[in-house]
């Protein structure tokens, strides 16, 4: 093979290397979110009510305990499950029962869930139950207009003074 052909061949090989790098470093494009969609992210951290309420120990009960364990208030550690429902336009979008983490099931339940929805105006209803008996403790309903590509975050805060419950951030 002549020198010229050899150099041409080497140039071709380098060009092929560069073309492969150049093309696959940006192409083909990946569509993560379809053009007419929006994203709902349901995410919060919440410690549910205790399964059994705290009670005051009697003097007799206290006497049975070791001296260093004699605390008047007895609070069972285990917490209730957290039940969450999310509806969009009257249809259930998501339902989950979150078990409290930890060996004693006393931790705060966490959730992060992404839900792809069509862009536009929707009526969202979020419900949460964090105790053993009864109906949902927290409910929020709202009409929300989601622009295409928008991320709406549904958070939950139980410790907001005056208005504990769901927060819709759009």
């Amino acid at each position, binding site marked *: 093979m002549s020198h010229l052909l050899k150099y*041409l061949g080497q140039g071709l090989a380098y*060009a092929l290397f560069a073309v492969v790098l150049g093309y*696959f*470093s940006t*192409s083909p*494009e990946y569509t*993560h979110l379809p*053009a007419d969609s929006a994203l709902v992210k349901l995410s919060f951290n919440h410690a549910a009510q205790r399964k059994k309420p705290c009670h005051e120990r009697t003097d007799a009960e206290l006497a049975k305990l070791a001296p260093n364990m004699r605390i008047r208030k007895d609070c069972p550690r285990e917490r209730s499950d957290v039940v969450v429902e999310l509806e969009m336009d009257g249809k259930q979008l998501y339902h989950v029962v979150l078990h409290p983490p930890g060996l004693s099931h006393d931790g705060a339940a966490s959730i*992060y869930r992404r839900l792809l929805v069509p862009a536009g105006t929707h009526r969202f209803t979020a419900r949460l139950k964090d105790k053993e008996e009864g109906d949902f403790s927290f409910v929020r309903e709202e009409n929300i207009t989601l622009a295409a590509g928008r*991320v709406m975050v549904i958070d939950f805060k139980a410790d907001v003074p005056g208005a504990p419950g769901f927060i819709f951030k759009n």
Partner: protein
Amino acid sequence: MRKYLQNLLLRLENVFNAPFGQALNPWYHLGAITFFLFWTVVVSGVYLYAFYRTGVEEAYQSVERLTHDQWYAGGVMRSLHRYASDGIVVTMLLHLLRNFITGRFHSFRWFSWVSGVLLVWLVYICGINGYWMVWDRLAQFIAVGTAEWFDWLPLFSQPLARNFLGQGDVNDRFFTLLSFAHITIPLVLLLFMWIHTKRMNNAETNPPLRLAVGTLLALLALSLIKPALSHAHADLALAPGVIRLDWFYLAPYPLLYIWSPGAVWALAGGITLLLLAVPWFLKPRMRPAVAEVHLDNCNGCSRCAEDCPYSAIVMRPRQDGRPYALQPVVDPNLCASCGICTGACPYSMPFRSNELVSGIELPDHALATLRVDVDHALAGLRGDVRVMVFGCDCAYDVRALQSEEVAALSLPCIGMLPPAFIDYVLRDTRVNGVMIAGCREGDCQYRLGIRWTKLRLARQRVPHLRRRVPLQRIECCWAGIQDGERARAALSALRARIAQLPQAAILEDDTREHEFKPGDKN
């Protein structure tokens, strides 16, 4: 299956041999090119670091300024940084694939293979970490995707993805952490690269200069033609829609949403475990016997240890009471049974009239047997132009060249051939010429067999070929399994050449030379 792939690979490499030649064929230097690309990334990265600012707004803006305001320097450096990083993935994965196809992963090579598999993870972590630093929509996509991926593991009390819910969730400190990680992780990567080559003597960590220059020019041209650009500034209130993904690093991310994070963990973990297990699952049933030291014929000169391609021989204080300081000790776990140590030993001298035992030998390929085989092969030769061919078991099978005028013997590696054997077969005009054949140059199965053979024949590395042996009667041919035509052409060329030379007194007078001095070094 692997045999079929091996044939395919040899053909592909042969295509590259035509323009590059065997010595510069990039397929034979994939590991070294990866090292070179790493240093390119380091140098360009140091420049970028000088201008990079840590902060939610500053990170993006500083990269934009680099890209547009000083496109001729910062822009080129950014593109070079990006494309060299992508190049690392390409050459690294090809290096891994090539070693798998050629069966270079089991026995004494398991350590390099396993450390190489871990390197793949580190390279990906470095690359993905780098993409976060730009803090554009692509970075946002990767940050959220990575968090969602890790949240599948039951490791965290709160989902990591909660850190990327809204604009206020990411702060300037996060970018300080990212830039710290982008220094620390490459340092760990470098440490593992060092460990990866630790068991190799004379590891090739720099590609040939021409190959390095060619690669750098190709990357520079690409950087000028298609500069690396950012997406729009990250905005956590908006979900990234269409993304120009770097598929070299980020190909698994779409799978997080097409399949699930758990499936991607299963895929990544499964591939990793499979690769880690390969050296034990696909190892040959029988392993050839490892080299044995014969202290009676060893003066502790250290040449075997210096020439061993896998550092399987170490020199330890002498134990047998003979008046030498050191003796070689073979680590059977590291020995490749290539015999290169036998080729390096000054006691591998076929002219010895007593029992022929070298200082270090392969039990399955004793030097005495080799001498008997040589004598036997030469005894049957006829004709005027008689040639002895020494070949290599890993290369073209030289026994196919045998004829009435050509004798051929194959060794585990051509590096096992002591130069004195060339001298030996040419004495008394038993043959008129010698052909030395081995793997394709740059692709020696045992890495250093060809290199040491060439240096020994050029009289630049001990044991030298004696000066009385005329070099015009020796032909070297580096031919792979498929390169029969090349081997036959080399043999014809040698025979044509020696037919022109005088047939008597082949060996020249070299009374000044000695056969061996115990203290000889390179």
